[in-house]
C-alpha cells in the first residue's frame, strides 16, 4: 500500500501577517515557513501506519505545489520520515489550480490512500482535498479524525455534528483530515535530517490550468474596542454591563 500526503507551505502559525503593494500581497519579509499544521498531522499518521508492519503500508510520499523556494519545507517532511517527495514546479495560483496539479501527480504515480489537511492556515479554503478527489473521480471522506487499516481495508472516523461516524472506504480514496488524526506532530530527529539530504525530490512541470479565483485585496481585522475592566471583587458589575450593552444575558 502506498500513501501520498499533500503538503502546503504556510507562514508559521504565530506570524502577525502584513501586506504590501497596496494590500494586495503578503509581505513575506521575515516569515518563517512551516508545513501546514493539518498536513503535518497527516504525515505523522501516515508514518505511524507505515511503522506498523500489519498495515501493509510500504511507502509514504509527500507532494507539494510550489516554486524552488519551498524546498526547505519539503526537506522537513523528508526529515520527519517521508520516503520521497514530488514537487510540482509552479506558484500555487489557487485551490483549483493546486488540485489540478496534484491530480496529475496521482494519475501518474498511483497511490492507495491520499491524505490532505482539511484546511491550510493561510488561505483557509478547505478545498484542495475534495477538489482533488473530484478531479480523480475518487471517493473522499472529509473531517477525518482517525484512519486505520484493518485486514487491508481502510477504516476512518469522521466528525459529524455532535458525534462521529466510523466508515469503511475502498481504496484508492482521499482522506481529508482534521485534528485528532495524530496526537502530536512527529519531530525530525538528527538522523532524519541527515537522511533527508539524499532523499529524492522528483520534479514535475505544471499542466496548463487557469485559476478560477483571484485574491485582489487583503485587510486587517477591525480593531476591537478597548477592554473595560471590572473589579474582581464585584463580578456582578460584569453581568450588569453584559445585560445593558450586549443584551445577550
Amino acid at each position, binding site marked *: 500500500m502506498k500513501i501520498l500526503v499533500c503538503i502546503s507551505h504556510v507562514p508559521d502559525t504565530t506570524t*502577525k501577517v502584513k501586506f504590501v503593494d497596496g494590500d494586495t500581497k503578503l509581505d513575506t519579509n521575515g516569515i518563517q515557513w512551516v508545513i501546514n499544521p493539518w498536513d503535518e498531522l497527516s504525515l505523522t499518521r501516515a508514518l505511524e501506519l507505515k511503522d506498523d508492519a500489519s498495515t501493509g503500508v510500504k511507502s509514504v510520499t509527500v507532494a507539494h505545489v510550489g516554486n524552488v523556494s519551498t524546498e526547505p519545507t519539503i526537506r522537513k517532511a523528508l526529515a520527519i520520515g517521508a520516503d520521497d517527495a514530488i514537487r510540482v514546479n509552479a506558484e500555487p495560483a489557487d485551490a483549483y489550480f493546486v488540485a489540478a496539479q496534484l491530480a496529475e501527480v496521482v494519475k501518474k504515480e498511483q497511490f492507495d490512500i491520499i491524505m490532505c489537511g482539511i484546511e491550510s492556515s493561510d488561505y483557509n479554503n478547505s478545498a484542495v482535498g475534495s477538489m482533488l478527489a473530484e478531479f480523480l473521480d475518487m471517493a473522499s471522506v472529509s473531517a477525518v479524525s482517525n484512519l486505520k487499516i484493518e485486514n487491508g481495508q481502510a477504516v476512518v472516523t469522521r466528525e459529524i455534528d455532535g458525534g462521529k461516524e466510523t466508515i469503511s472506504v475502498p481504496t484508492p480514496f482521499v482522506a481529508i483530515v482534521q485534528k485528532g488524526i495524530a496526537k502530536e506532530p512527529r519531530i525530525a530527529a538528527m538522523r532524519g535530517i541527515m537522511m533527508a539530504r539524499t532523499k529524492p525530490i522528483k520534479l514535475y512541470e505544471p499542466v496548463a490550468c487557469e485559476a478560477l479565483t483571484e485574491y485582489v485585496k487583503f485587510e486587517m481585522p477591525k480593531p476591537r474596542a478597548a477592554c473595560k475592566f471590572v473589579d474582581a471583587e464585584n*463580578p*456582578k458589575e460584569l*453581568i450588569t454591563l453584559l445585560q445593558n450593552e450586549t443584551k445577550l444575558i
Partner: protein
Amino acid sequence: MSVLVYTENWEGKFKKLSFELVSYACKVAEMTGTTTTAVTIGEVSDEELKQLGKYGADKVICVKNENLKTLDGQLYTNVIAQIAQTEGSKVIVIANNNSGKAIAPRLSVKMKAALGSGVSQLPLSLSPFTVFKRSFSGGAFAHVVLKTDTKIITLTQNSFDIVENSKDAKIEKIDLQVGAPKIAIKDVQKQTGKLLLTDAEIVVSGGRGMKSPDNWGPLVELAELLGAATACSRPVSDEGWRPHEEHTGQTGKIIAPNLYIAVGISGATQHIAGVSGSKYIVAINNDKSAPIFEVAQYGIVGDAQKVLPKLVEAVKEVKGK
C-alpha cells in the same frame, strides 16, 4: 437563473444555520434580480420545508433517495450539480461546515465554478463578483474575485443575521437517480440533547488557568445558567481535562458565537484564531498583560477559582434562580 442554496437537515429538521443560509441566498438573489431555490436531501415534512419560505426561499426542493441516506461527497455533489443545472443557477450557497467542506469543493470542480469559501459578508461587488472571506486564520480578511460564470459561496456560520421574508414557498419532492455510495457507515456515535459548540450563541471556555480538571464545576454551572455551550483551549484538551470536541482554536473548532467567555485562557495566537469571529469576548485571567485582554471588550483580572463562583451567584440573581 435562481440563486441555489443547499441546506442539510438534521433528522428532518432545519436549524438557525439553515435560515442564515436562506436569508443570505435571498439577499444575493435580490442583488442579482432573481429568485431563491433551496435544496435539501433526505426525509423532511412539508411543514418543515415551508419554514425555508419564511426566510425568503421561493421554491424548496427536497431530494429523497435510498442511496443518499448518509453524506457521500460524490453523490451529494451530483445531486446539487443536477439541480443547479435545471434551475440554471449562477450562484450556489452552501454552509462552511464539515458537510459543506465535503461538497462545495467537489462541486467547484464538477461545474468548473469558482469557489469562495468561509465568506462572512454579502458580495462586495457583482462585477467583478467579489467576496469577503477570512484568511490567515483570522489574521486578515481577503477580497476574492470569483472569475467564472457560475459561483459557489460557502458561508461562515453565525456571520449573517437571519431575516424574515415571508414567502409561500413552492415545495417539490423529487427522486434523483444516483449511483451506489462507495463508502459504508459501520458505526455512528452521537451525543443527543447537548447544545453543539458551533451552534451556541454563548460559549464559556476554560484554559490552563483553571488549574485542574476538578475545577470545572462552576464553569459548567455558569454555562448551564446562560444556556451556553462549554469549550476549552488546546492545552486543556491535550491534557485530557476536557474532551477534544471542546477544543476551540486554529486546529480545533472555529466558532463565532455572540458572546465568548474565556476563563483562564491567556490567548495565544492559535487560540484567538478560533474565536476572533465572536461578537463580544469576555476574559477572566489573573495576568493583566495576557494577550486575551487585547481582543476582549470586557475583562476581570483575577483568579478564575475565586471569580467564577461569584459570577454564578450574580447570574442566578439576575435570572431569578
